[in-house]
């Protein structure tokens, strides 16, 4: 999966960070880091 594919699957305005009962959208920096990790993990699945 590519970064663009991942972003299309999970747009920044549709993914949330939850702390207890409060949810918020990610900052740009948080989103880019989350996408990078998600793409890496998607492409390197462990057992």
């Amino acid at each position, binding site marked *: 999966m590519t970064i663009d594919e991942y972003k299309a699957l999970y747009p920044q305005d549709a993914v*949330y*960070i939850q702390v*207890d009962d409060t949810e918020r959208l990610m900052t740009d920096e948080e989103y880019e880091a989350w996408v990078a990790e998600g793409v890496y993990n998607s492409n390197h699945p462990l057992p």
Partner: protein
Amino acid sequence: MATPPDFSSGAVLTAAQMNAVGLWLVKTQTVGTAVASVAVTGAFSTDYDNYKIVYSNGVTSATGELRVILGATTAGYSNALVYGAYAGGAATVVGNAAAANWNFMGYGSTGAVSMNFELYQPFLTKNTFMSSTHIQFAGLVAGTNNGVLANTTSYTGFTITPASGTMTGGTIRVYGYRN
């Protein structure tokens, strides 16, 4: 009166009997929709040294493992997963040394999540130890996962994150083992 849980109808419970109850529900957290991570705060305290955490009835958008950190710490997590295939055969060990999180703490798919782990002394200013089950229902393997967070920080909460994608729904329950 018999030792709990064999209560009789109308019985009055004594302090001694209530103090013999070994596991208490400390916190319940409902998981939202399409969340990249869920932080559960205010879960650990002086009341209990050791905890059991179960996440059930949720789903993940992508099939894969769930990861956990304590507080805001993103270093020093070590764990080893020993797993085998449901079809049998030799066990495999996957190590995770001095990492940014504990991996293989659970598993999720679009159909379900499985997560059940125990934390030993997360609130105490000692190393925190972890034991978890890793049950895959898509990957056809299951195993046991144990590890340590090698610092002496006192923690009050934790965060669950899928390796990729998001989580939706279900409930995280934190139980404390009576000291």
